[in-house]
């Protein structure tokens, strides 16, 4: 098993390198000269060349990439074009806010999704299954940015119960939670639907296996059969939970834009508007790294829960 874990760790390195190449390439994907954004319009040719040299744009691409990578691994993500602040500082603050939001929405989606999925599986074909499956389809189909706007219309504009924008300003826990409520719900919808569907089908697969019939035949209480089913459906579910948590971090861009939640998504949104490529790169690189490591963690966790996986 440890060999599998080691191999899986090694496999993550080329993926991370590949991701870093994509992020590096973003500068050159952008239309126009990469330094056009920082140069005054009337800059002379010599000035342009000097700046190019200072940024290292006069060197061949592979050299530029390696130098950039060298800086990135030491935590230097460059400076924001708009604010001149170090990108790593902005990303760090934003990531903290995004993590809180991702954690709260994941918790909500996990609990509700698992409950809904199990409910549907154990009442397969009945009304309760149809309702649960219906909620799941709505969850995976709804554009979460629109759901966010609907929540604002209902709870902020019409009822005036919860704030529509931003994070808490005065630092109180209650205030923070009140600001977090609506974005949490909006962000939880999609994973809720996905998880409910996966849990339902995983539980149905287990229920169809012969050992369940055997358990029932020997007269095991319904509650104990349930425990067996949950145990056997767990590995598949855990993969999805891990993936969904990662999606929450990356997918919160649109929801954060709706609620002006000061996380990575909001930062990304700002960077897009100001065409601030270093910030764009920094945020995406940090999130992608996070996502890859999370997938790694899930794979490793899974082999500990179900050692059969390592043997494949």
């Amino acid at each position, binding site marked *: 098993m440890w060999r599998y874990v080691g191999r899986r760790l090694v496999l993550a390195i080329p993926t991370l390198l590949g991701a870093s190449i994509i992020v590096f390439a973003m500068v050159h994907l952008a239309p126009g000269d990469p330094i056009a954004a920082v140069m005054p319009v009337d800059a002379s040719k010599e000035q342009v060349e000097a700046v190019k040299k200072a940024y290292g744009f006069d060197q061949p691409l592979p050299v530029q990439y390696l130098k950039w990578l060298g800086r990135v691994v030491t935590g230097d993500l460059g400076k924001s074009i708009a604010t001149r602040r170090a990108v790593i500082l902005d990303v760090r603050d934003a990531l903290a806010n995004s993590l809180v939001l991702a954690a709260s929405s994941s918790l909500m989606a996990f609990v509700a999704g698992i409950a809904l999925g199990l409910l549907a599986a154990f009442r397969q074909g009945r009304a309760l299954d149809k309702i649960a499956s219906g909620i799941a389809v709505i969850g995976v189909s709804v554009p979460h940015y629109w759901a966010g706007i609907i929540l604002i219309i209902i709870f902020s504009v019409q009822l005036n119960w919860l704030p529509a924008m931003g994070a808490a300003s005065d630092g109180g826990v209650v205030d923070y939670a009140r600001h977090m409520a609506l974005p949490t719900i909006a962000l939880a919808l999609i994973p809720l639907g996905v998880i409910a569907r996966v849990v339902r089908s995983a539980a149905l697969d287990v229920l169809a296996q012969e050992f369940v019939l055997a358990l029932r035949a020997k007269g095991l209480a319904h509650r104990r059969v349930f425990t067996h089913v949950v145990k056997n459906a767990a590995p598949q579910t855990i993969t999805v939970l891990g993936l969904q948590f990662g999606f929450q*971090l990356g997918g919160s861009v649109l929801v954060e834009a709706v609620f002006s939640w000061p996380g990575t998504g909001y930062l990304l949104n700002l960077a897009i508007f100001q065409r601030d490529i270093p910030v764009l790169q920094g945020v995406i690189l940090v999130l992608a790294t996070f996502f890859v490591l999370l997938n790694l963690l899930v794979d490793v966790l899974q082999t500990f829960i179900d050692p059969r996986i390592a043997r494949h």
Partner: protein
Amino acid sequence: MSVVALPQEVSTVAGAPMSYWRTVAWRLARDRATLVAGAILLLIAVSALLAPWIAPHDPNAGSIRLRLAPIGGATHPLGTDEQGRDMLSRLLWGGRMTLVAGLTPVVVAFLVGTVLGVIAGYAGGLTNTLVMRTMDVFYAFPAVLLAIAISGALGPGLPNTLISLSIVFIPRVVRVAESATVQVKGLEFVAAARASGAGVWPILRHHLLANILGPVLVFASTQVSLSIILAAGLSFLGLGVTPPAAEWGLMLNTLRQSIYVNAIVPALPGLAIFVTSMAFNLVSDGLRDAMEIRS
């Protein structure tokens, strides 16, 4: 009692077993949810297609005095937007744009992804490693983030949206096509065809493609709903279709500031995205069940 042979009539009444596609059609015809979703989808597609002829007003002509009219009016049944433009007309025109922006990437990904996946799966070895490891790199990003990264770098505009979303969906199709190809390649009839001297192309065409296109197509259909949500989402962020064009995500974005004035009209473009995406999901669910393809 002696064994009685089945009368000849009975076996003819039972008939030959239905062909695969007839079975699929038979199942679909009995799946009410899928049929209703399919009808809704057809309605949306036809009305988007006919927008130039059935839209009551010019989607870009507004009037300052008629801003944010409520729904239910005689001249503007679905109200007007923040610039006084007719919502019904804009929703019809917007549907064209959103459907094109959502469907094209999946079609491109289906074509490119199937080719790459079949090549990787059939060739195996180094080719397989090269193609599949490259695809793995794209899996380092959640879909939304990858779309925003590429669109954010390329800048706004419909062509850039199509490029970035195609890049999001190609690796997914490649994975499905590759694993299906590897599975079919290992079956005996492919070995038999190869042993009897069939060339690579005939095998690919008659044996592999014929057997993997169904599952890959169904998988692609499950991605349409996400593609539509992402395409509209990019416009919502200002990265997709550029104003003044009507597109559901863009309309949602520009109307978002007006929820304090009129709560219903700003919600309409999002409702359109939601209904379309849900209809696509239900149809692809039904298709998957009818074709007995496991996700």
